[in-house]
């Protein structure tokens, strides 16, 4: 299976990606969880957002070393993502996919890249710490600038409205409904 090599800052090349494609990503990414999104929405983005990639991750950092840095659940950031895309962010890395609203927001300009949940050691082995913004938010919630070396990812949502997570989940729920024609009989 073909693996496309991407490097930040991302540009128009992401428009040719399709949901289900495997890619590797190199270059700088910025971690952000709930608190960092709120801070950036209110006070501005501390890095150049044009072509940037945001990683939904709260790493474990020891000194200048990243010890563990797997992805967190992206859906928590559904309502906090539009302003980043409007500012020029071209890629989001996380796990579990994002809501249908974000699928529309990504259209024509950005992609959602899935990294395997729980793979904290694999992630750390492909990372080098570059710097930090908002350290006062604490280790998990700060924005860490991280240099990636070919992190293996899957295009979960492409820039054309195709959402692999959504399609798989909808099919699973439909299958479940088809298999059992009534509710599970939980006492009313």
């Amino acid at each position: 299976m073909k693996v496309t090599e991407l490097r930040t800052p991302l540009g128009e090349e992401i428009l040719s990606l399709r949901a289900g494609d495997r890619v590797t990503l190199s270059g700088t990414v910025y971690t952000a969880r709930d608190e960092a999104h709120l801070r950036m929405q209110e006070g501005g983005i501390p890095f150049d957002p044009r072509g940037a990639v945001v990683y939904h991750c709260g790493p474990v950092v020891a000194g200048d070393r990243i010890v563990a840095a797997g992805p967190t659940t992206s859906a928590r950031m559904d309502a906090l993502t539009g302003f980043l895309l409007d500012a020029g962010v071209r890629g989001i890395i996380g796990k579990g996919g994002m809501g249908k609203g974000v699928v529309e927001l990504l259209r024509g300009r950005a992609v959602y890249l899935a990294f395997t949940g729980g793979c904290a050691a694999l992630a750390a082995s492909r990372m080098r710490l570059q710097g930090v913004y908002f350290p006062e938010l604490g280790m998990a919630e700060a924005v860490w600038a991280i240099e990636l070396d070919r992190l293996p990812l899957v295009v979960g949502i492409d820039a054309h409205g195709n959402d692999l997570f959504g399609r798989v989940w909808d099919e699973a729920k439909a299958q479940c409904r088809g298999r059992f024609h009534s509710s599970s009989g939980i006492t009313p």
Partner: protein
Amino acid sequence: MHRADDPALLAALAEATAGALAEAEVRLPGDVEQAIRAAHGRERNPVAKGELGNILENIALAGKGRTLLCQDTGIPVIYLTIPPDIPYTRALEEAVARGVRLATERIPLRPNAVDPCTRKNTGDNTGPGIPPVHVQPGDRLTVTVLPKGAGSENVSRVGMLLPTRTAGVEQFVVETVALAGGRPCPPVILGVGIGSTFDGVAALAKEALLLPVDAMDPFEQRLCGAVNSLGIGPMGLGGDTTALAVKVKRAACHTASLPVAVNVQCWAARRATRIVEGWK
């Protein structure tokens, strides 16, 4: 009879708890790793195969570098067996909590325990009722740790089914996984409790997660097959393996009840046991 407040006993138990956590957080049990390897071998979906390959590489890197398997180091659920000559006292529970604090500092673990309402972090993975300690009689003093992450715990369910609909058990299990989608970091292991009471069935489901996953009885196999036919796959990206295994524990129950619980466990099914040597 040993004295329950013997400092050597309490120190040995604290060290055994910390040691079991240090093992569990960096090295998966052999049966779990083997189940992931087998799933990787038979997977037909290339995206899913890639995800399982990443997981296997992660397991190898964590074991080699003695680093954390996952950054969600979980809430440490503790199971003790206590021999007849050791009285079960509050001091033993406190020794276990001390072991959790030692592990949090030494390994280090991410501090995950917070006040449920103020959300203030206690900073050391202990607090009122945390770690939960479950005690059973045994021949030796042993401590088993089950660090439980939140992503999979949050999609777990308890249901009080109609007692006339025993077929509802399979449906409840499959529904639980369908509702969870990719959120619990599949491929999952399901601990299923059937019977007991509202509280007891959840404990059964969690105890089922302590069972080895290298064997399933025909009922467990049927549940596992039904779950895998959903096609959710590793991380919810689609594929043949949504569940590595389903393990079931049963208890009797009220004639008017049919309690069922599904405790969902992510692929990082961490558990380890230490015998506290020298204490019988």
